[in-house]
């Protein structure tokens, strides 16, 4: 009996030992790349097969749906987890990840391997790689250029009866809007209209409350009406810039667009809901990040000639669009930093970046996007280029999450819940952000 027990214990011990050793042994050759679960991630899996073949390293992927992406990955970084060797993190995380040494600083590695940030689209370098901003301190390689733009039903716009009715009503052609006012006119025109026997609506816009949705949407209107994050001459001076007259008008415009022209129940919509509404033929236009355009173009119902693309229209205060996209970083806790850096070196090559674009990823390498054939390579390529030229991004401070949550609350309270006025919302936002920056010792 005794020896039986001993043998069983020894067998169990051996089993645990083997599994533990097996796990460690397997990790040595494996690299885990963490990103959001979306179409471009699938393209990256395909692209990475070349790296696996060339390096002998095996790639594993951890993709998290967007609404939980920040929660999951920031938890991972903050808890010192070792899940990710490479992380394609949101642009706003760069400040926190750099200051808390969660990402590996890449300057020396870039210098050694002849990777120059001058070779990438400037806005993506500032947005995805630098911290502090506008200084040559790099924590990521621009991996995926993205920006908020619009998709529209080209086939509906081309209907002669709608063209005639629109011209009669607005004294201009039903065409791609050049200003935010024109955009609202078009959305109003389509709202509640019967097209092909189905009731349709004007536009799907971002209204999501939980993560960053409504901020990513409303900021486009705010930028174009004159909103600024702070005094360009005096950092962190918010009063009069965040709550300027233009900013208030921008928020009022966004609410008016929500009130007049969105489908019923569109009170908590972000990327996927907008895609669904557009692909199911509910809306004439949808606001969304550029990453969706390859999917729309290939869609059986709305793809090809049925859809067109245009950048965020200008407003009275300027012409800007909200930056999306991410850079790829090496996680400081990774046990495979050398292999992870080898991946970045491979990814930065021009032929890999060209292939990235053909597979559906938006390359940020200037030589790829400036190639004469790029603009005509896809129906949305020119819109992508035009949009990337006008980008602005949200705070990338270490306290970005507090700044973001305050913005989400203020915007959703006003735009969707109809609480208070736009002026009160923006004044409240100044108070919230001031509190955050004071806590941070930046004011």
């Amino acid at each position: 009996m005794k020896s039986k027990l001993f043998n069983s214990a020894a067998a169990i011990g051996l089993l645990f030992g083997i599994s533990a050793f097996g796990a460690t042994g397997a990790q040595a050759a494996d690299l885990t790349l963490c990103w959001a679960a979306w179409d471009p991630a699938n393209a990256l899996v395909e692209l990475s097969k070349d790296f696996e073949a060339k390096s002998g390293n095996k790639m594993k992927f951890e993709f998290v749906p967007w609404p939980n992406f920040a929660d999951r990955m920031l938890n991972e970084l903050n808890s010192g987890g070792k899940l990710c060797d490479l992380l394609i993190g949101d642009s706003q995380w760069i400040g926190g990840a750099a200051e808390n040494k969660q990402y590996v600083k890449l300057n020396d590695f870039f210098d050694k391997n002849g990777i120059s940030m001058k070779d990438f689209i400037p806005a993506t370098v500032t947005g995805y790689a630098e911290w502090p901003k506008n200084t040559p301190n790099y924590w990521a390689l621009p991996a995926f250029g993205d920006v908020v733009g619009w998709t529209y039903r080209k086939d509906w716009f081309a209907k002669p009866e709608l063209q005639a009715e629109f011209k009669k009503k607005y004294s201009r052609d039903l065409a791609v809007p050049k200003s935010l006012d024109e955009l609202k006119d078009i959305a109003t025109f389509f709202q509640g209209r019967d097209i092909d026997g189905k009731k349709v609506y004007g536009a799907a816009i971002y209204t999501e409350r939980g993560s960053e949705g409504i901020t990513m949407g409303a900021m486009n209107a705010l930028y174009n009406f004159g909103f600024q994050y702070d005094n360009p001459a005096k950092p962190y001076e918010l009063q009069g810039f965040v709550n300027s007259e233009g900013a208030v008008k921008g928020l009022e415009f966004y609410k008016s667009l929500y009130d007049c022209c969105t489908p019923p129940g569109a009170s908590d919509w972000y990327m996927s809901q907008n895609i669904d509404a557009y692909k199911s033929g509910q809306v004439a236009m949808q606001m969304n990040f550029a990453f969706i355009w390859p999917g729309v173009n290939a869609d059986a119902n709305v793809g090809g000639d049925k859809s067109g693309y245009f950048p965020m229209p200008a407003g009275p205060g300027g012409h800007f669009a909200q930056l999306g996209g991410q850079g790829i970083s090496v996680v400081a806790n990774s046990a495979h930093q050398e292999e992870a850096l080898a991946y970045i070196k491979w990814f930065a090559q021009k032929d890999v970046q060209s292939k990235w674009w053909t597979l559906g990823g938006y390359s940020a390498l200037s030589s790829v996007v400036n190639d004469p054939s790029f603009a005509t390579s896809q129906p949305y390529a020119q819109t992508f280029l035009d949009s990337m030229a006008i980008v602005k991004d949200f705070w990338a401070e270490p306290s970005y999450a507090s700044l973001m949550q305050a913005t989400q609350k203020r915007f959703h309270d006003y735009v969707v819940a109809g609480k208070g006025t736009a002026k009160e919302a923006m004044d409240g936002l100044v108070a919230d952000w001031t509190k955050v920056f004071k806590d941070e010792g930046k004011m």
Partner: protein
Amino acid sequence: MSPTQFERAAEATPPILAKKIRGLSDRAIAWIFVAPTIFLLLAINIFPLIWTIRLSFTNFRVNRPNAEVQFVGLDNYRRILSDADIWLTMQTTAHFLIWTIVLQVLIGFSLAYLINKKFRGNDLWTTIIVFPMMLSPAVVGNFWTFLYQPQIGLFNYVVGFLTHTDPSSFSMIGDVNLAPWAIVIVDTWMWTPFVMLICLAGLRSIPGSIYEAAECDRASKWRQFWTITLPMVLPFLMLAVLFRGIENFKMFDLVVQLTGGGPGSITELTSINLKREAFEKWRTGYSSAYAVILFVTVFGLASIYVKALNKVKER
């Protein structure tokens, strides 16, 4: 006579072990059995609680491992208790708590009263009624967002049909006036069966002889209900209220799936607000103080309530 289970266990115990155990007192053996549970309780509940209380007096942020942690005294508590937004979430939670409990008790007790009557298919109906509480709250939340969808949702369709209005003319989870009721309806749908089961246990524990005696005294059904049924079920009802009260005070998953706290902050319960402070804004010290306040509130209210419950049971 065959040996009992204990006798068989005693026989199977190896002699060396038996000898060792024989030398232990009853108290020592009791401690041996209880020790693992106490250890787990200390490790998983008590230690984190003490640690949370400690953190609540600091400005610690878990996402700033390199930053200096400062003792801030009662500052976090002062800020929380003077924050108008937090009081608003408390009000929202109170609204949710009161209405869900009122509805669940009324409907749950009524259903239990009906199910307690002998009729054909009694067991089948009980199983059908209990079905919602077997589902995961996340699934229920997702499922109801579709039911509440203005254009294709069954709920809107039925309401539209009954009231002769356009189903897409109202949005249960997008309208500030309707959203608080939308979460109350779903929670009531899901958890009324739980209250019903507890009430049913209470109803079935009432001896039939009491009713027979009442019949002999020619007491009406109405009188029997008020003087026998309700007083004897009351401790069970109060227990159900306690369980639902504690559960709904910390309600999170269902509401997050349904409304995410919106529109605006209309359905932002304290648990959602606390999660945002702790795991989105990463204000660990501040959110620890917030958690302590909520803990004291629930613990205090529950203690008072349990005392009242014991008094009712003693009657």
